[in-house]
């Protein structure tokens, strides 16, 4: 009987709040793939949006949503799952008084020592910490050529086919390409990309589309820089045969010297495909030099 009364009072409180204000929470911050169900459809969570009674909130793995309750208290949600907004509101409590906090503070200092003392490692995550590691640099994202090769390595257990997504700076999808290989050749002169100064690239396994892959930028050179590189390249290009692997290797060296690792990588991959196995070691050294691999 008591619990029914409590539920009824909670319901009345929430209802009165909902009538007074047309929302229960506002979104302060959102990280990862988070969605809100308003009516029948799931929509991405927008920062500053209102969450109302009857709405549902869905968080994916490694996501975070920061909310502010209608009465001003904050609420953080870090666990993946689906949450009923009205239930979240019913869980909101008035903040503790200073006296209560002082008592808790004094008592908490007597807490027992943590038993699991192996939560942290003396190591860092590199390379295959992500399921799919795209071999593109985080800095130095400038590219000279229109032809770009995107290649990636996968963790054990990650299988193809892969979906390569190209977006503009505002997250609009320009193109999605499915491939069973771990390499993809793309032409930036293509009409989908031709107007874009920067193209964002991400690779996902088709079998695991929920994962939020890391995005890598590919940025075109400014016309002045492009002219400068073109002029320098003109001096050596006459003596190179693009059908020879050695010529591609020389080109790779030229691009690397000019701080264009994406172009260099494209030339290396080209050389490797012309003479399989011959330049694997050189390629690995290049990847390590460019911090693309540890």
């Amino acid at each position, binding site marked *: 009987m008591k619990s029914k009364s409590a539920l009824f009072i909670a319901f009345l409180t929430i209802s009165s709040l909902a009538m007074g204000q047309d929302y229960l929470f506002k979104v302060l911050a959102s990280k990862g793939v988070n969605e809100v169900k308003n009516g029948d459809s799931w929509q991405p969570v927008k920062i500053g949006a209102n969450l109302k009674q009857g709405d549902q909130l869905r968080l994916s793995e490694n996501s*975070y949503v920061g909310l502010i309750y209608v009465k001003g208290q904050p609420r953080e949600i*870090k666990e993946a799952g689906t949450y009923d907004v009205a239930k979240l509101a019913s869980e909101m409590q008035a903040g503790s008084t200073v006296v209560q906090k002082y008592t808790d503070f004094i008592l908490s200092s007597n807490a027992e020592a943590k038993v699991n003392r192996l939560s942290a490692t003396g190591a860092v995550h590199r390379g295959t910490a992500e399921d799919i590691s795209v071999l593109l640099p985080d800095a130095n994202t400038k590219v000279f050529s229109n032809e770009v090769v995107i290649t990636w390595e996968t963790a054990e257990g990650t299988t193809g086919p892969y979906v390569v997504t190209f977006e503009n700076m505002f997250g609009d999808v320009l193109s999605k390409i499915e491939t069973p290989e771990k390499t993809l050749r793309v032409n930036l002169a293509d009409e989908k990309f031709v107007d874009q100064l920067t193209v964002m690239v991400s690779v996902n396994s088709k079998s695991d589309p929920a994962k939020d892959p890391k995005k890598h930028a590919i940025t075109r050179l400014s016309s002045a820089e492009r002219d400068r590189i073109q002029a320098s390249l003109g001096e050596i290009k006459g003596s190179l045969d693009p059908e020879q692997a050695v010529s591609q290797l020389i080109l790779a060296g030229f691009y690397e010297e000019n701080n264009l690792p994406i172009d260099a990588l494209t030339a290396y991959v080209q050389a490797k495909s012309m003479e399989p196995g011959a330049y694997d070691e050189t390629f690995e050294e290049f990847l390590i030099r460019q911090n693309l691999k540890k």
Partner: protein
Amino acid sequence: MKKLLLHSTVATVFVFSVLVTLQKVSQLELFNAFDPIGKALDDLEFSDISFSQLREDPEIDTSIVMINIGYLSRAEIAQQIMMISQFEPKVIGIDGFFNCPGGLRDSLNCPMAYDTIGNTMLNFAIEQAGNVVLVTKLLQTDSLINALGDVDIYDSIEHTDDFIRGNAYEGFANLETDAAHQEDLKACRTFVPAVEVNGERQLAFSVMMAMLYDSAKTNRFLARGKKSEIINYRGNIIDPYGASGYPNRYYTLDWYQALDANSFVPGLFKDKIVIMGFLGQTLDDTSWDDKFFTPLNKQFAGKSRPDMYGAVVHANIVSMILNEDYIEELPEWTKIVIAIVVCYLNVALFWMIMQRDPDWFDGISILVQLLQFVAVSFMMVTFLSFFSFKLELTATLAIIAIVGTCFEIYCNVILTIWGRIKAKRMLTRKGEKVLTPVKD
């Protein structure tokens, strides 16, 4: 009664002498190598505990929106500004310098100076927005340092390059810390609102943003005329690793969200203060770049990690000014007076206990000290919570901690030695009297 007053006064002087001696010895740093506790607690202030754990939950300030600029290029930051300014924020503060560090302008040391498109875009975005505040840095020239040494006078200012700055307002981003340089550990509890540089008043970055947002409130704040103000911290941005008390207190957008109009509601920026600054490569980055220790740090003493990015410290100052929610503090002389009064009353009480029932002295004195310690610390907490008053009674707490032991030393050693000296003199006088030949 006369004896009580006399001994209370002398014992109070003795307790203070011991305290001052202990302080002087610690200043000599003779025993620093063997003083891990002192080192660990060196930077602790009792009010930090109140700030981080023991006060009423501060209200969330929805008039400020934080935006991460991460490692974006100048062109990309320009895109962020253009994206935001179309939603009509009242002020946009950018907590970043756009110049060549050290003044080296060659293409190797400062390639960004040659990024003509990026620089032009940034300048255009700043000019078009029309309400941008950029940061400056107060500097001391070598000639000033050579002439005056370590002083808090500044005669030079580092600006963003002219060809980018355009019509932007400026405010200095220097914050008060004990750090020797930018990469040093930085603990920030206070800030300087305004400084005179070569006869011209310069406002702090946060104060300039507040001034553009609400000049009436900001002028009232400046009229307080304090050289240094305690920052009444309200909270942090999202804090995935739980370093800070009161996280999730400001609207926060990561760098890519500020470039995507679908990530936020259109009204989010309308008439608000937008502060763009480095909040990590992404919001879940663990970078220590431009990160400060603040009183909100959950680990208030000993080994810890910084908890708040500099841009968020500026946001907290803006919140404090716009909410007119300042923290007052005791003048230095009152701290000493309170410590003297407390010491005197303790000593008088202990003297009375010692005279009436010495067997009870040890037990009662420890109990009295313990109760006072809890009471004073509770007062410090509650004053900050209820009256926004920083009741800094560290000297009083130190006195309470040592007064019992010092009083025992006073009674058992000082008074005994004094008694013996006195007794010897008396014997000597008696001897003279005894040995004086009686004249017949």
